[in-house]
């Protein structure tokens, strides 16, 4: 038997690699599909050509479950997108993640990444996750021409202004919002973004932190009022295209389509920067900035006008090999991140990606908001423990289905809170 293996091993190609090439392969687990996967593949190509390392990418929308299983089975991928900062902290404390201080060139990283990003990727002072791309959340997308034709403003001063305008439009028989929250196992997350942004722009970053840390009860007047504020939009069938049944059954990646129907069926669509790539793929003829644009969700309280919510995909390392180190390093470079930016799939946390690399005025504006925001917070649901996060998603679905059940939904969330933060 052993002889057989030796014979087979000798059959394997052992051709000498040209200088500078490492060869071998690196396995990567992530969530990117569709437009994002196309960009990822484009980004990987020059790395593979240069290093001879083959990148084996595996995509799943149920990242948490797949990653947890593989880690506990002792066969994690070399690199993986981490489901959330909360999960990253769990994995780091279990000793599953490699300390990147010994892998990446920290001096170079500190030059290209703002300290905030490095802090978000650190657990107990050790860097264990890096952001290859980032998204600015809380944007309201629209079609400038149809918005003008409908007499709607593209720069409402406050959330109340936006709501008043939407209600006035509805009274004239125009449906202002297009919302869709379906997303397979993660259905409901779109709603968490709405609620987080409304929260941030009503109560500010300090309270926001208390909330995701589990110190502020769901049934508290603050959190409850945020749901009620959102309920003024999502609970009003006159304001949302198709009503709650449409909101529940429409995938987030297609929810913007009514904006671009002729005549348009809706005018506002709330989503993060990454949706630009989805719009571009669905309607290749549309020009960013001319045919679609965005404004930041206006503040509920004026003092929080300059706040922004961001999110990003964190990548962590489970196995340190020359290949995984090289690829992780590549992911943090301006060269790699320019692909995400050019593809309209997000923004770059790397400061060295020049604004000129952003494909259009629109993404430049997003990048500017990102760098100029005075109060930047990370996606709250991602900061919550996994159990709280999934309960939050499910609560959004229940709320959209029946807003009258709010008290009950919040009580359920508090039950989960008592359980989820306790560990």
């Amino acid at each position: 038997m052993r002889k057989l293996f030796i014979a087979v091993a000798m059959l394997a190609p052992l051709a000498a690699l040209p200088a500078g090439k490492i060869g071998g392969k690196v396995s990567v687990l992530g969530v990117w599909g569709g437009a994002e996967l196309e960009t990822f593949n484009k980004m990987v190509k020059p790395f593979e050509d240069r290093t001879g390392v083959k990148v084996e990418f595996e995509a799943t929308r149920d990242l948490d479950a797949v990653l947890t299983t593989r880690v506990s089975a002792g066969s994690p991928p070399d690199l993986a997108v981490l489901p959330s900062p909360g999960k990253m902290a769990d994995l780091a404390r279990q000793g599953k993640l490699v300390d990147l201080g010994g892998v990446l060139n920290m001096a170079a990283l500190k030059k290209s990444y703002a300290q905030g990003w490095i802090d978000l990727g650190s657990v107990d002072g050790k860097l264990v996750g890096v952001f290859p791309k980032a998204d600015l959340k809380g944007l309201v997308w629209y079609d400038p021409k149809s918005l003008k034709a409908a007499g709607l403003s593209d720069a409402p001063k406050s959330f109340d202004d936006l709501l008043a305008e939407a209600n006035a439009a509805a009274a004239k028989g125009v449906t202002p919002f297009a919302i869709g929250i379906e997303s397979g196992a993660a259905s409901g997350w779109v709603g968490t973004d709405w609620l987080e942004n409304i929260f941030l722009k009503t109560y500010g970053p300090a309270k926001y932190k208390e909330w995701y840390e589990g110190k502020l009860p769901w049934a508290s007047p603050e959190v409850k009022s945020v749901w009620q504020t959102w309920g003024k939009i999502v609970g009003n069938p006159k304001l949302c295209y198709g009503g709650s049944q449409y909101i529940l059954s429409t995938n987030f990646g297609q929810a913007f389509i009514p904006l671009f129907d002729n005549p348009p069926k809706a005018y506002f669509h709330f989503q993060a920067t990454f949706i630009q790539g989805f719009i571009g793929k669905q309607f290749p003829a549309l020009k960013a900035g001319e045919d679609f644009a965005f404004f930041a969700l206006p503040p509920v309280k004026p003092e929080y006008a300059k706040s922004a919510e961001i999110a990003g995909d964190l990548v962590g390392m489970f196995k340190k090999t020359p290949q995984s180190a090289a690829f992780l390093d590549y992911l943090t470079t301006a060269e790699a991140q320019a692909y995400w930016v050019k593809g309209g799939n997000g923004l770059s946390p790397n400061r060295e990606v020049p604004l000129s690399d952003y494909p259009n005025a629109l993404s430049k504006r997003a990048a500017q908001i990102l760098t100029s925001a005075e109060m930047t917070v990370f996606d709250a649901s991602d900061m919550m423990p996994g159990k709280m996060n999934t309960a939050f998603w499910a609560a959004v679905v229940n709320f959209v289905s029946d807003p009258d059940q709010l008290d009950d939904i919040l009580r359920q969330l508090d039950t989960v809170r008592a359980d989820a933060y306790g560990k």
Partner: protein
Amino acid sequence: MWERLVWGLVAVAGVPLVLSGYVFAVERALSPFAARRRNALRPWLWLVPGVVLLAGFLIYPVVHTLVLSLFNATSTRFAGLGNYVHIFTERSMLTVLRNNLLWLLIFPTVTVVLGLVLAVLTDRVRYQWAVKAAIFVPMAISLVAAGVIWKFMYQYQPPGQPQTGTVNSFLSTLVPGFQPRAWLFDRALNNPALIFVLVWMWVGFAMVILYAALKGIDEALLEAARLEGATEFQIFFKITLPLMMPTVTVVTTTLVINVLKVFDVVYVMTNGSLGTDVIANRMYKEMFNYNDFGRASAFATLLLLAIIPVMFMNIKRFGRGGRA
């Protein structure tokens, strides 16, 4: 690539080799004994590999799961029956239990009745092979694919818009004044809509097995009844159905076992949202999303306890069949 090919070959050639090697080794080991002793010992020794595999891959995990279900999420603290108490008192868990009961009552009943009707009716048409093939084909599709297909079938667009979902489009064309429904997101409809998908998958199976039983009935018996002036309905309920009863029971128990484990369809189509969660999906969430070994094991144990009586009945029935 080469590595996999080698392992494939090892599996194909190696397993029979090792097994026949084991038989030889047993003979070697038995050779010092007298012939009578040898014959008495041989079957036990032959059973060893099977029993070891069963113990390792079936009995040990079951016992381990039972033990884990009595511990907390990280299996570090004894929790007694805490996990079970939680399951039987927490509201979202009660919905899960209610749904499984709903599936258990509706799915086997509808599938068996439909399968029976189809078996009897298709028997009487000339193009029965075509009908049967069409009904049986879903059996060949994986449950996940069926879930995806039906997600498209159930798609919803607001009233007045072109309906992209087959079900809504079909119904709004046929039924005047029909309002399209979001089948999977309407609390009154979502559970039946999900159950229907599994019925669609399994009705072919029920039909084929029941058809075989139908064909096993002696034609002379039915002829005699007709000569005596019995109506077709009387023949069906008084002769055909009672004679098919053993098969109906087997089909039903198979369906019951399958429905208790229902997971894929729910996971793919709603992931348990809006009151559609079932035990297996909840178990998956507790285990892989929440890392709660205690509750996941408690759910697994409950499922096992629910399935044991059905399995027991099935085994007893097989045993009787063997002796007959």
